[in-house]
């Protein structure tokens, strides 16, 4: 059985690393998603093409393979070295940034064209239209799909254990090797991920409510146990609207 010493020495720090990796790669993905998503609606085709190429390439990339590549191929080939966690965050941030850019693009495309026209009639610059009119209106629409993506990202952070980052999953693995009592370890691990996903979803719902209030929309009520997923018309992971 798990010793409390082991829990304190490995599991809790592992939980902390999981949270760090989730937060850092979400931040990186977020920072990538906005420019890429916006540029994919740019009026110059070459800009749209380049931003679209980023999206297509990293959406088609296996994040685990990419993570291995950054961790084990980049350092010897380019003669640089970095922390494994850096490789993990980079790989997750870049691939999830591509998915998230699709959310940004889709939400911008869903702003009624009449809003753009009203912006032109008031002589806003294209950038002012984006910042004052289009993004504020698109933002509440982005939150539910961002929520789903964040849960995917949280699950994806378990991959960093495979490049020797001591996250929760890594701690679980280590514990199994030491105690050979895998049933309670992996059960606990799964429950912990579920609880984290649940908490993140609650947080995102609050954010959504706040955002909707700020643009004058009445937020819809969802119960406390409204599930871990948000319903949304945009699905970044599958890239489909409509049927999903």
């Amino acid at each position, binding site marked *: 059985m798990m010793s409390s010493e082991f829990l304190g020495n490995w599991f809790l720090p592992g939980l902390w690393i999981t949270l760090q990796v989730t937060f850092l790669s979400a931040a990186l993905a977020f920072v990538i998603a906005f420019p890429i998503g916006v540029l994919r609606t740019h009026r110059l085709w070459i800009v749209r093409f380049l931003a679209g190429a980023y999206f297509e390439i990293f959406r088609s990339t296996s994040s685990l393979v990419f993570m291995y590549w950054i961790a084990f191929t980049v350092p010897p080939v380019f003669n640089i070295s970095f922390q494994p966690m850096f490789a993990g965050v980079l790989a997750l941030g870049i691939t999830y940034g591509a998915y998230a850019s699709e959310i940004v693009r889709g939400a911008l495309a869903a702003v009624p064209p*009449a809003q753009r026209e009203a912006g032109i009639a008031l002589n806003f610059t294209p950038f002012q239209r984006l910042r004052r009119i289009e993004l504020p209106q698109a933002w509440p629409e982005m939150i539910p799909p961002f929520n789903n993506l964040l849960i995917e990202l949280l699950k994806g952070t378990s991959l960093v254990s495979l490049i020797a980052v001591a996250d929760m999953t890594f701690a679980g693995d280590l514990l199994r090797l030491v105690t050979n009592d895998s049933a309670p370890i992996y059960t606990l691990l799964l429950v912990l991920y579920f609880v984290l996903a649940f908490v993140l979803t609650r947080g995102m719902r609050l954010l959504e409510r706040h955002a909707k209030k700020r643009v*004058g929309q009445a937020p819809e009520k969802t119960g406390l146990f409204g599930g871990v997923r948000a319903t949304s018309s945009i699905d970044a992971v599958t890239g489909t609207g409509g049927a999903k």
Partner: protein
Amino acid sequence: MSADSSTSQEIANPAVDGSELIRFDKVVKRYGSNTVLDELDFSVASGKHVTLIGPSGSGKTTILRLLMTLVKPDEGTIGVGDRYLTHEERGGRLVPAGEKHVREVRKNIGMVFQQFNLFPNMKVLRNVTEAPVSVLGLSKDEAEARARELLDLVGLGDRCDAYPSQLSGGQQQRVAIARALAMRPQVLLLDEVTSALDPELVAGVLDVLRDIAHTTDITMLCVTHEMSFARDISDQVLMFDAGRVIESGPPEQIFTEPEHERTREFLGAVL
């Protein structure tokens, strides 16, 4: 109807006699194979109130959208004041206007839309102050003082803190009028501004517009199906059909003794 014969190749100052604020010169607009405007020539003198009437699909709204640069003409030029809206002069040649030139000329034009198009993410007051602050560079206080004045004018001085979604259609449209006026345009384009309103809300909006027409020297270009309103405020009425002006004149003449058969038919159907 202006019989302007100058060609678009000429780069003379378009405002030859200085009184014409808006000039369309051989403007062609096509959507696919459908020609909406066919070598259209017409002009509007400064300070006049002009109403465009005609069957739907005759290109009236397209004229407003061209003036607002929401669509581009396929051929011909559009002038506003002493400049072209669609073109600029570069090295002695007329070339399609760049964004900067367009913005400079477009400053003089405001528009009120059929569907109001208020910004749902901003409260009423900010709908009116946003553009004066970020486009004209007014201070926030200045813009707010002016916005409150305009909102009082349209009878909504007490709804500054409401979101558009909390207002009726008529109230939203009055905010949209205040928003357009806050930019101090020389020209105000009104695109079927009462068509999306419930009948009992139409009068309030038209009253506001009448008020503006009679108390300011703003040039108005108006597409409407409200013939009594058109008669009330217009100096000139243009009858459109199939992308051309087929008849024009003061409202008394057009509404009481139209010359053209199509005009008679149209008025017979709507009056």
